[in-house]
């Protein structure tokens, strides 16, 4: 019984550590999550089309707008994001990309002021 508990405890601690690593990229369309992935898990180029006219590319630990039907293209100008707490938004198309660090925030930021 003690062995079972010990194995379960070690497994729980290991799983917690796993969740604490990496950066989660999320794509929102009108407030709804349409894509979510650990950025380091994305090895091959992945193209996400949250809405017609908007293309987001994730590759090699980076994610960003690569095509948009909006006029200003401010979203594309934000570039490819890779750092935690980075965001890029296509406001006319109501699409948002956020990068959040996994796990506890003791070593990172809760938000960025700009």
């Amino acid at each position, binding site marked *: *019984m*003690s*062995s079972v*508990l*010990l194995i*379960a*405890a*070690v497994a*729980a*601690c290991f799983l*917690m550590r796993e969740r604490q690593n990496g950066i989660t990229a*999320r794509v*929102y369309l*009108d*407030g709804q999550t349409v894509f979510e992935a650990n950025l380091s898990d994305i090895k091959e180029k992945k193209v996400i089309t949250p809405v017609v006219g908007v293309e987001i590319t994730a590759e090699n630990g980076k994610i960003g707008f690569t095509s948009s039907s909006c*006029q*200003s293209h*401010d979203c594309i100008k*934000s*570039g490819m*994001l*890779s*750092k935690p*707490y*980075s*965001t890029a*938004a296509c*406001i006319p198309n*109501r699409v*948002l990309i*956020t990068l*959040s660090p996994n796990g*506890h*925030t*003791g070593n*990172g*930021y*809760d*938000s*960025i*002021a*700009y």
Partner: protein
Amino acid sequence: MRGFILKKTAAVLSAVCIIVSLCACGSQKNEYSSFAMGSAVSASLYGKDKKQTDLLWNEISSAVTAADRLLSATSDGSDISRINSTGSAIVDSRTVSFLQKAVLLCNTLNRRLDITLGAVTALWGFTGGTPSVPDESALKAALDTVNIDGVFIDEANRTVSVENGQKLDVGALGKGEACDIMKEKLLASDTAACISFGGNVLVTGENPKGKNGEWKIGMRDPLGSPDEVFAALSLKAENGALCVSTSGSYEKRFEENGKSYHHIINPDTGYPAENGLVSVSVICPSGLNADALSTALFVNGLNETSVLWLKSFGADAVFVFENGTVFVTDSICKNFTITNTDVYKTVSYEEAAK
């Protein structure tokens, strides 16, 4: 005997590990996003019941959207648009209340912030996405309409009128007002949260994951790339909530004929304020006051009047200059750390203000 002790120890340790891992899941972080007032909103609300935080977020989102519909200068049919197009309009009582606060702020801050700057800001074109330097005579004519005394608010009849040719631009205050709306709902439900609203940051309650309940806020590097941070600020919302509002010359910047222009306009000249600052971040329990102060301080620069304003509003600030020097008001000095010491250094008021 030894084997028995080892087994007992293993059992206790296992139980402790399991309890710790379960306890860490108590207050969940729920993430949300939306758009309002031309800005992206990212929110983290902490709670044990996700359904309840979902409901709370929907309520908050609806309230902010409602405010956006009243105050947006670019949405046809908003209260501000109707005032601007006809010179006078019957408006929502919330708009009356907001404009009363806005006019008071403009006067208190020596008109370093002026909501009647609309005709001037329209000429610069920052909102449209294709800014350019306006024609000098057109700018002079627009500047002649800037006068906060021209705004007349009839509270009883919910009517707001402006002088002939005047246009209201409340862009400098909208996000702060939205932060206050969100703050009230979060405090009423005793919910810890951290929300980024187009760069304004609102924190409520104690951070369940933070050291001593503090929220750790990174400050964007005003002289570097958009995803770089130059300093960290630890905030503890002792009065329940704190808002951080930043006015920076790095946003909406453009170049024309070899000269760089930013969007924070001096109401006296009609041109971007130039006093050596690249950003001013204000920390205050009120989002509206934080917004108003960050703009007014950027225009006014660092001087005794600016310091007096901060004290009278119960606010603190971080002033960042083009040469990398940084002045931080006393109360938050110990909570502020420069992380990019290659470029930035904190200096005294005397050195910063000279």
